[in-house]
């Protein structure tokens, strides 16, 4: 058969005859014709060496997030504010614990002695603002973590165990349809106001949003074939949830966590401002704003400093969180 085949370039010397002539081939490869046209050794490992991609989910998330310079700047800005709140207390001229009301020092505008001025009863505002920043961030972190733990655990059950679906959906309907502010008012009036009451009530009413989110995702992954395989292998429910499903939810959980921090700070500020949040003696940014409300027209610095910090922290977290959610979406990993 072979000899009846005319190679195409025999007829078209200008196209290939020159390139593929024995001399040209030998020159190109530096090997004699007999060797070139002999069988090569077959390496099975060479064939098994796959063309797999080295795609890694977290690496890609990280890479895309770092590309968003603005978001990275926001994260740095937040960290800077948080770290500075400690530094500021250390370098400040007054300690929060030893502040005493002093009628003579009322409403002093910011100067070399009182860097943020003094408040209506003559206390140093600098150390109050930074102490309050810490309280607010602490509260937000505790609430976010609490929401996350409760929401993920219950959300997983809600999504995986069909029988519980109705029950949780009704809870969701109740919590969702009545504004949080009403619950908060009731609790503040009936139980009282303190840092921990605030934490617990916020967790109590906000876990459901995390749970709903988690539930939708669990629903999506529950009947994937790899979970059926696990059921065939007799894997227990807890293991299926923690090993098979949770790892897929991490990015969403982190995102919600990041977004719940600014919203909690916002809630705390609003509620405290309305007098339904923390008690007046716990300095938080909301309490400072509440205290300044009667005087800020005359002494705007009382409003501006805490308000600026609330804005910086919430906006920075919000923008960084959104950037992260874009980065965590595998569709953007091209």
């Amino acid at each position: 058969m072979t000899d009846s085949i005319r190679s195409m370039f025999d007829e078209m010397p200008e196209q290939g005859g020159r390139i593929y002539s024995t001399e040209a081939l030998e020159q190109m490869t530096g090997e004699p014709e007999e060797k070139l046209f002999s069988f090569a050794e077959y390496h099975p490992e060479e064939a098994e060496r796959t063309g797999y991609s080295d795609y890694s989910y977290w690496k890609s998330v990280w890479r895309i997030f770092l590309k968003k310079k603005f978001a990275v700047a926001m994260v740095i800005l937040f960290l800077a504010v948080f770290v500075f709140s400690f530094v500021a207390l250390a370098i400040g001229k007054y300690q929060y614990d030893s502040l005493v009301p002093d009628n003579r020092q009322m409403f002093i505008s910011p100067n070399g002695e009182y860097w943020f001025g003094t408040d209506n009863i003559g206390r140093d505002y600098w150390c109050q603002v930074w102490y309050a920043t810490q309280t607010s961030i602490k509260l937000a972190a505790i609430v976010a973590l609490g929401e996350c733990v409760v929401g993920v655990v219950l959300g997983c059950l809600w999504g995986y165990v069909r029988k519980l679906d109705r029950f949780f959906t009704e809870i969701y309907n109740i919590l969702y349809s009545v504004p949080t502010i009403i619950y908060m008012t009731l609790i503040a009036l009936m139980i009282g106001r303190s840092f921990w009451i605030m934490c617990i009530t916020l967790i109590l009413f906000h876990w459901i949003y995390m749970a709903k989110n988690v539930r939708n995702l669990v629903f999506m992954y529950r009947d994937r074939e790899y979970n059926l395989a696990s059921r065939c292998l007799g894997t227990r429910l807890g293991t299926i949830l923690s090993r098979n499903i949770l790892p897929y939810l991490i990015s969403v959980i982190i995102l919600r966590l990041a977004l719940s921090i600014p919203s909690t700070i916002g809630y705390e500020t609003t509620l405290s401002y309305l007098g339904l949040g923390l008690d007046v003696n716990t300095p938080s940014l909301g309490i400072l704003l509440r205290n300044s409300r009667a005087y800020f027209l005359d002494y705007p610095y009382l409003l501006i400093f805490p308000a600026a910090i609330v804005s910086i922290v919430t906006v920075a977290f919000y923008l960084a969180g959104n950037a992260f959610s874009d980065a965590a979406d595998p569709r953007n990993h091209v």
Partner: protein
Amino acid sequence: MEKEKIILSAKDVEIQFSLRGDRLTAIRGCSLDLYEGETLAIVGESGSGKSVFTKSFLGMLDQNGSVTGGSILFEGEDIARLKSEKDWRRIRGGKIAMVMQDPMTSLNPLKRIGQQVEESILLHQQLTPAEARKEALHMLELVGIPDAERRYSQYPHEFSGGMRQRVVIAIAVACRPRILICDEPTTALDVTIQAQILALIRDLQKKFGMTIIYITHDLGVVANVAERVAVMYAGQIIEIGTAEEIFYDPRHPYSWALLGALPQLGIKGEKLPTIEGTPPNLFNRITGDAFAPRNRQALQIDYQVEPPYFEVTSTHKAKTWLLDPRAPRVEQPDSIKRLSGRMTVDYGSARHPHEDPDRETLIQVRDMQVTFGTGRRKFVAVDHVSFEIYRGETFALVGESGSGKTTIGRAITRINPISAGEILYKGRRISGRISKELDREVIKGCQMIFQDPLASLNERAKVDYIVSEGIRNLHMYRDEAERQEMVRNALCEVGLLPEFASRFPHEFSGGQRQRIGIARALIMKPEFIVADEPISALDVSIRAQVLNLLNELKTTYGLTYLFIAHDLSVVRFIADRIAVIYKGRIVELSEAEELFRHPLHPYTKALLSAIPEPDPAVERNKDLVVYDPSVHDYTEDKPVWCEILPGHFVFGNSAELESYRAALRA
């Protein structure tokens, strides 16, 4: 047919994609002359670039891809240079149209069917709305939609998959394109529907004189439709010729491998020839012949110099150094030679486990019913099904999508609860509530292999964890060292390297992932495995690897399989007995060869006639049998499940059974 005029000419097309900062060359210098009025099929595995290549004729490459070299001449214009959407709109639809794979996603679910057809007519033809409506109705009739007037104002969800694909075709053809590109038009459809759609496209081609490009991985479909065939590998056409030339006299080693790996051409009980390895990584520069590392008969030169095209006949070209006069002669493999004379091969000589008088019943299903939903929305997925599976056999369950075959498999592995009847494993009931010890025993004894190698592995766990999941649950090892040893053995068993244990699933190709799934089941040392379409989602070359592996494990460990499939041709190669299921009922059950020789139930006949054979001569002369369920009149004469011959069961009423008996006597 006149095949002189070239309608489209692609020359040295190169297409690149930028992906995560890297450049991927998907098409590496591809040339193609398309003749007016012909039907060309482009065949290749996934990733070979067949879709990308043809999408560039329409300017429909993804955002991150572009034609970076070469030219595509169409109507005297180089369309590879077109940039703006406005320019493309002149060509797209009106001149070159495309039918996509999935009829579920290519129609707008919120618009009436008729409007969608009308829309495409109005865009490309100067017609008044009234005329367009008439034309749309005409198109719907033309593509075989019965009662077009009423169907015109229905929504896509009221159409079945096959009917939707007909509508998609109507939309594509409505503008009378010169070239119609069909990208896997029937892959998402059932076999019987597939045959009808292929026939429809052929009719339309005759009527409108279109040129058609088929993109497919199914060589049966190619044999059915194509006049010319182009085989693609790693972004290049490596062989092109008429269908007869490619099927009966292929010259490129990759074409040999592709054809040889078809189970239809295999001999039962023997290994299928396979192509080891996976296609090359297109991020890398490829020197020489891209197929060389997987080719057992590669020449030294294949690794160094890219082969040119050699002309076998004026229509047949192949890109391999084997055709060079200086190269040593290499014989075509036997399986290719067998292609024409294949039907005479006797499949029936092997002994089957169920013929053994001392056969042991491993699984027994009695009057099983599975329903989903409750009350008025109750849906009966499996309706009073009974069968037995004997130790050591491969029992195949064949049916269309939605027939309930997967539900049966899942009921046996107890993923889906059953609503009536019972399932026995070694004579003991395993459905419903069972004791803890029996539960353990069933988990150990009955395992499952899944269809989709992408979805069936936990992407976020290491292979080590995935494979040892079962033995962890049942504490089947003494210490950590023994567990690792077991994982290593299981991986070796399925032909994977032990060091793969520390990797994540995404690092593997489809075939390797499927083997990980098999290792996961195998490590439990099961007796019975439900294989739920284990090869349907795999490429042709990888199918052979997996089928060989399943057969090998069966002989080594005496495994018993329930093999669920929609493809009768694959089942013929692997199964001892076949049950055909239609709408939740088994309509016929028999020894495999007996079923192929004497199909009795009309549905079995339709299914058999619809199987695409990888043989152009057979495909072109076949008569399609269409199954019409209304031929059964079960109002008075109730149907029964009857053993009409020893081992051959069929579902029918007394009149039908009488006619089946008459057919068997004849």
